[in-house]
Structure formats: C-alpha cells, structure tokens
C-alpha cells in the first residue's frame, strides 16, 4: 500500500474512533437535560406568566415530551445530528445561531493563547533545562509553581487593576471599541489591543504546564543514546541541544497542547467573563445568570465537539511529524 493511502486510512480510522465519543457526549447531554427540574414547557409557561394545565399538556404533546424516554432520546439524537440544538427562550433565537455567533471570538482567544502559552512555555522550559540548577532554572521553576496555583479570574482582575485602571495601557473589557467605528487595519489593531490581557491571563496556567513539560522533556532526551553519539561525532553542545534534543523534546509538548484544549475552554469561560470578551464563555456566563439551560447545554456540546476535532487535527499533524505513530 502506498504511503498516502496508509495515511488516509489512519485519518479515517481516527475519524471513526471519534464517533462513539461524540454520541456518548450527546447522550450525556440528553440525560443532563432530563435531570434538570422542569422541562421546556415549564420554562415556556414560566415565561408566559400563566398557562393552564390543559394547554401545557398539549404543548408537551406537540414537543413529544409525553413520549417514553427512549423515543425522546432518539428524537434528541436526530435533532442534534441535524444541528438542531433547541431554542433559547431568553434570547428568542435558535441555540445554534447564538452559539455560532460567539464562536469566532472564542476561537481567536484560544488560538492566540495556545501560541503564546506553547511558544513561551517552550522557551522558558528550554532556558530552565539548559541552565539546570542555576538561578535561571530556579526562577523559572518558582514562576511555574506560582502561576500553577493562581486562580485565573483573580490574575485577570489584578491585570485590570494595575495595567488598565492604573496605567491605562489596555482596555478593561470587550473585544473592540465599537463606538469608534474602526475599519480595516485600525480595527484589527483595536481587536489585537483588546486581546492582549485576556490572552496573557488565559495563557498563564498553561504556560506553567508547558514550561514544566518542556523542561522535563529536554532533560529526558538529553540522556538518550543519540545524544552520546552526537557528542562522539564531535558536535558542539550548542548544536546538540538546539538541533537534536530540541526537536525530539518538542513532540510531547505538541501532544499536550491537544490534550489541554478541553481545559482551555473551561478557562475561557472564566477569562471571558472577567474581560467581557464576547465569546462562548461569556455566553455561558450569561446563560448561567438567566438560567438558560438549553443554551448552556448547546455550548457544552459544541465545546466538546471542538475538543474532539482539535484532537483529531493534532493526531493527524502528529502522524505527519512522526511516521512511527502509524505503525501502532
């Protein structure tokens, strides 16, 4: 079999593996909805102020809520697979539309966070590993330890107090200055300016993680046989470190970046609500406040799907980076 065909088969296999997980998540979602007090009709009746029991029974029939549980589950599955995530009665909009609306800002925040956290984490881990047990290593390790223990929302608020309110360097909230009607590059610059604090805040926790991981990974690789070989060949330490060890040490960091996407979404709920960043996290925060369960479940489902797809993409990239993966 040719190489491309093999690779294609691998991608297909990974796609198939993701299917049961997605189904399981949808089923969990359905049962969470069942667990909640009251159903959509109760919510509707509550919104309307008053409703007769007869009218409510009729509505339940219309929505299929009088059907046995397995039938309801089947209907729910069918709806979700047709991208129908239900209706948000607070926003008077289909959940899917609302969620897609807020998807881009979250994606922007997450992508910039991953780049910052992975990039700086790799550099810090490298610095710590190359200066093992010096003040540099200690300083970086202490930094990682402290940021690992810091609540994200608190760091965000402290950034606002010091950098926004005291120094006025960054805006306190939002994604852009809408009243300014920026266009073109001005708008890009404006959004980037708003993006700085949320990105730095969200990065901190993961920065600690990647720094530690990179340091450990570098140290592990430094003890490998190929390093001894390189040294025997007479290569400079510098070249060994930055060309041979660094490349191999990067692999676990890349994997970890994929695993952490789920946690990143959780962090973005907090960071977005601190900085009023108009993404999925902020939407979740608003949904919490208005007790909009349908919306909350939609966000949950979409974020889980996002994690599945990111992991899939990372796996595929990984199989290009490291052909050995295909064998296993």
């Amino acid at each position: 079999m040719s190489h491309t065909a093999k690779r294609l088969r691998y991608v297909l296999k990974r796609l198939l593996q993701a299917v049961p997980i997605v189904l399981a998540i949808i089923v969990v979602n359905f049962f969470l909805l069942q667990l909640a007090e009251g159903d959509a009709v109760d919510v509707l009746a509550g919104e309307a102020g008053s409703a007769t029991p007869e009218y409510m029974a009729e509505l339940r029939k219309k929505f299929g809520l009088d059907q046995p549980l397995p039938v309801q589950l089947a209907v729910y599955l069918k709806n979700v697979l047709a991208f129908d995530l239900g209706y948000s009665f607070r926003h008077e909009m289909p959940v899917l539309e609302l969620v897609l609306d807020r998807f881009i800002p979250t994606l922007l925040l997450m992508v910039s966070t991953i780049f910052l956290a992975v990039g700086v984490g790799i550099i810090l881990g490298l610095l710590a590993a190359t200066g093992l047990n010096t003040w540099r290593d200690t300083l970086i390790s202490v930094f990682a330890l402290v940021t690992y223990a810091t609540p994200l929302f608190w760091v965000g608020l402290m950034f606002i107090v010091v950098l926004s309110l005291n120094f006025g360097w960054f805006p306190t909230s939002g994604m852009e200055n809408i009243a300014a009607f920026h266009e073109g590059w001005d708008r890009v610059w404006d959004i980037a300016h708003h993006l700085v604090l949320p990105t730095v805040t969200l990065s901190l926790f993961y920065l600690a993680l990647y720094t530690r991981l990179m340091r450990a990974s570098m140290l592990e690789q430094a003890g490998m046989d190929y390093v001894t070989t390189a040294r025997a060949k007479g290569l400079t330490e510098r070249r060994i470190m930055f060309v041979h060890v660094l490349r191999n040490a990067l692999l676990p960091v890349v994997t970890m970046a994929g695993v952490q996407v789920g946690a990143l979404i959780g962090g973005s709920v907090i960071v977005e609500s601190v900085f009023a960043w108009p993404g999925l996290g902020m939407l979740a925060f608003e949904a919490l406040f208005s007790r909009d369960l349908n919306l909350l479940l939609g966000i949950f489902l979409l974020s889980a799907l996002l994690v599945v797809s990111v992991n899939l993409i990372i796996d595929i990239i990984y199989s290009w980076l490291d052909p050995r993966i295909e064998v296993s």
Partner: protein
Amino acid sequence: MANFWRLFRRNRSAVAGLAILVMVILMAATAQLLYPADPFSLAGASMQPPGEGGFLLGSDSLGRDVAAGIAHGAKTSLLIGLLATIVAVGFGTVMGALAGYYGGWIDDLLMRTTEMFQTIPSFVFAILLVAIMKPSIHSIVIAIAVVSWPAVARLVRGEFLSLKNREFVQACHTLGMSDAKVILGEILPNCLSPIIVIGSLMVATAILIESGLAFLGLGDPNIMSWGFQIGAGRTLLRSAWWVCTFPGIAILVTVLAINLVGEGLNDALNPRLRERQ
C-alpha cells in the same frame, strides 16, 4: 512513620508548604472565635481601605469585613476541597481496582468513560452539573468529584494491572484467598502511595475549581467563600481594589502550599522517582 518524616523533611519547600497549610487550617478552625459574627453581616462602615475603620483588610460596599470573609472562606475551601477529593478518590479507586483486577467489560466501560471525560471540558461540565442541581455544598462537591475521579481510576487501574500478576498475588491465589481479600488486603496497600499523592494534589485543584464556580456565582449562597468574595468585589475594582485582592492571595497561598506538600509527599513516598530526578 519516623522514616517518612525524615524523607519528607529533606524537601525544604514541602516543609514550608506544610507550615503554611497548618496556618490556613488553624485560621479555618479559629474563624468562629476570631470573627464570631456572620461574615455576610454588616460589620461597620463600607468601602474602608485596609487598616482603617477597624478593618484589618478593609471592607466592601456592604460593610462586610474582608478579613472575616477570608477566615470563614478558609473553612469552605478546605472542606469542599477535602470532601470532593475523598469522594473522587474513593469512587475512582473502586472503579480502577475493579477494572484493573477483573479486566473484561468493566475495564472496557471504564476506559471508554475516562476517554469521554478527557474529551469533555471538565470545568464547563462542572458548571453544568452545579447549575442543574442548584448551587449547594452537596452539588459542588458532587460536580468536582464527577470531573476528578477518572484520573484516579486510570492511575489505580494501571497499578492493579502491574501488580496483579506479581508472585505475591499469585501466592495469595494459591492459598485460596478470596478476591476481595486479595484486592483490599494485598494489592491496594501496595498502591497507596500514588493514591495519596494524586489525592493531595487533587485537593488543590478542587479548591481552584470551587473558587472558580463561586466566582461565577455558583457557590453555596449561604456560605462565605473566597471565590464569592472576589466575584462580589469585581464591580468595585476601580474604587476598592482590596476586596478582590486579598481573597485571591488566600487562594494562591493555600493552593501553592498544598501543591508543595503534594510534591513533598511524592518525593518521600516514591524514592525511586526522587533518585531519578
């Protein structure tokens, strides 16, 4: 025990962490004595900066004492962190032990479940669970435990897998020991060290999750907590920075201390690992 302490003491930062943790526990234990009044009640003038109006760490817009809130919040954080960890470690250990020991469908089920949990954004899941069950100590503990147990289960499963074919276990089978006896009396004691380590680190994570939930307004409404203080004080950032600042430092210091103790435990309980570093 003396040997354990000797090993633990070698890690100086772990000892420092333990000292801080003991102080936090003392603060939680004496909160009722230091600040007998309800921490939600009005204690004096509002918006007092630290050190003024009889407030050590200032007061918020409703005249609540920030220091009193921190002292009472320590109780909440430690309690929820500990309870959630006990539930998660207990359940995770049972599931991991059964899966590792028996294999078969239990193992398949467990592995698929933990895979799903690795995919689900756990904090968002915790938010959902608390929102659905209505915020209370119970629902928060359950939510944190639900998102935390798979890590324990995987760990215990791995330990059981590697131990169940060892000679001493086979000897037990030859002696005709019951499965329950082998699991509880022979294998489990041999994997206590990693369970203790993961449990201690989990307390720290649980405290962080709890504070995040409380910050988002999902704390138990009748109980003072650090996350709630920060959430309530965020609107005062411009005028009263101290309301948010001090509870955050309390979280940071406590979580840091627990992490240090956890690493110390790891070093002391897994000598093999320590030598490698």
